[in-house]
């Protein structure tokens, strides 16, 4: 069986983003593989290392040329080859799911791993949308995964707790923090990754036009009131604080 793992490139958690022309401007920001996707790549590698009959692990990314860097990271971690659907168009998760589903079918994969939530736009829709298009079961927020033959078992978080599951492949799995501890690519593996296949593809073949149009962006600024309470008299200070929380901030009744 083959595994497809989706890789997105996002600003580093500490990167400072700018807005220019009403759009997020990533110029100069450090870009990395989305942490949620790292869990996916790592899990694919672990399934294989754990003895599951994984023939090939393929990483897929869409986006501008720079996204290659994130794919190289996946290759350096141990993925066998990569596909880059190169486009300067930003794809929302629903449009992206069109690409993922079609690549999955063309490549004949039976397990798709995607991040549970995007680090940049916070969307959780990609896994669901991909599963819907393919008519495959989806397991969201997975914390544990094992593969025996064609049966996937594991645990995942649901609204009212943590559930064990067992599903026959094919399936879509979304990751979350705690699924595993992603490895650092080692220097020799980064060298080896240079020789692995990174195939380029264009977006036109997929008919995946974005359905969401960004009309404007703003950086959220946090305004502080800087109100100081004199603490000389603790009783009075506590009373004043309670009064402020109750009547001004209205956070307690």
């Amino acid at each position, binding site marked *: 069986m083959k595994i497809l793992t989706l890789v997105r490139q996002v600003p580093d958690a500490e990167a400072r983003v700018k807005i220019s022309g009403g759009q997020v401007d990533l110029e100069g920001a450090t870009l*990395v593989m989305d942490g949620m996707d790292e869990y996916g790549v790592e899990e694919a590698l672990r399934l294989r290392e754990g003895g599951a009959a994984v023939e090939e692990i393929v990483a897929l990314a869409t986006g501008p040329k720079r996204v*290659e*860097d994130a794919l*190289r*990271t996946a290759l*350096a971690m141990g993925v066998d080859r990569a596909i880059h659907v190169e486009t300067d168009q930003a794809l929302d998760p629903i449009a992206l799911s069109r690409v993922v589903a079609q690549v999955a079918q063309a490549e004949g994969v039976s397990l798709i791993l995607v991040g549970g939530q995007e680090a940049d736009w916070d969307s959780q829709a990609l896994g669901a949308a991909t599963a819907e298009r393919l008519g495959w079961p989806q397991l969201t927020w997975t914390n544990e995964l094992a593969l025996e033959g064609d049966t996937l078992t594991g645990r995942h978080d649901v609204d009212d707790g943590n559930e064990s599951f067992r599903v026959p492949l094919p399936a879509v799995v979304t990751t979350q923090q705690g699924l595993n501890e992603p490895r*650092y*690519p*080692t*220097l*020799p593996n*980064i*060298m080896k*990754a*240079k020789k692995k296949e990174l195939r380029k593809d264009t977006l036109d073949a997929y008919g995946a036009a974005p359905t969401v149009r960004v009309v404007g962006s703003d950086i959220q600024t946090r305004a502080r009131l800087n109100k100081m309470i004199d603490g000389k008299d603790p009783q009075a200070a506590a009373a004043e604080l309670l009064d402020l929380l109750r009547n001004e901030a209205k956070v307690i009744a």
Partner: protein
Amino acid sequence: MNFTLPEDLREMQAAVRGFMLEVVEARAREIEDTNRVPPELLRGAAELGLFGLSIPEEYGGVGLGALGRCAVYEALGQGHMGFGGVISAHASIGTSGLVRLGTEEQKRRFLPRMASGECIAGFAITEPSSGSDAANIRTRAERRGDVYVLNGTKHYISNAPVAGLLTVIAVTDPARGTRGMSAFLVEPGRTPGVTIGKIDEKMGQKGSLSAEVIFEDAEVPAANLLGPEHLGYREALGILTNGRVGIAARATGAMQRLLDLSVAHAKTREQFGQPIAEFQAVQFMLAEMEVAIQTSRLLWQKVAWMVDEGQDVRRMASVAKLYATEMLSQVADKAVQVAGGMGYMKDSPVERYYRDQRLLRIYEGTSEIQKLIIARDLLA
């Protein structure tokens, strides 16, 4: 012209930086207090490939050129400098002689174990009576049948207390003067007559251990002669020339870390009702640090590129080493100033860098010796 590092090198820098800042830094205080690098960290470094940086792929190394090695050294410089010192003494001066001059048999014998971190390496030229004046070393190596008998004392030898292999420079023919020197591959633990002295108590770079190496009728197999007999001073010091660019790159990384710490501190520390970053006096220190970093980085990148192009870098390696290490001292001083009292406290990495960085202006040729090399080359 293109000033962007190739993607794979940037990826390596990210991996090494991540390891240094997350894994090594977490144990920094322990390294400071015990003067030992925990074995898990050395294993981590070995898995990452750091011990094989400059070893060709066919011997199990990463097989990086000068640009790649220096890119990694810059990332290494962003973390604990004592830890970085262990790696650089091994991967730079400890390895480069063997890679450059070794026979196939010698390479097969040592390089794979060096790449895996099993055999840590070092380089020994300095003696108590000849430091800067390295042409005047006294350690003798006399051929007797199929061994060389070594007598003499080396000191301040990095990694000696943990080394499986030392590249040792000794005099094989005093009559030939500086042309009468040779290099030897010496396995300290396995060579009777080689003693490692007590570990030096240093100002900084804790965890990177140095010591005396004493040779008393030590018999080194003739098969361990590295390169031709009477290799000469210039060739022997060629091992150091390449090391010098690496030092410039490490210094650049150290400056970058100090600037990052200073910027973060300046933005959050408030005095007189505002972040100290609002004061122009503080801004100027940050700006000066940035200039030092940018110029040092350009220099090491240029020299590394020259090495990869096969150009003679004797002068330029000294230019880069001199400049970057002198700048680093200034940057470390400013970083302490920006941090205020906190920069003087053991809990601050700034305090540690302030001590650790000082060595870079001394070893692998003092700043004065770099100036001599540059001037002699200009006047030749």
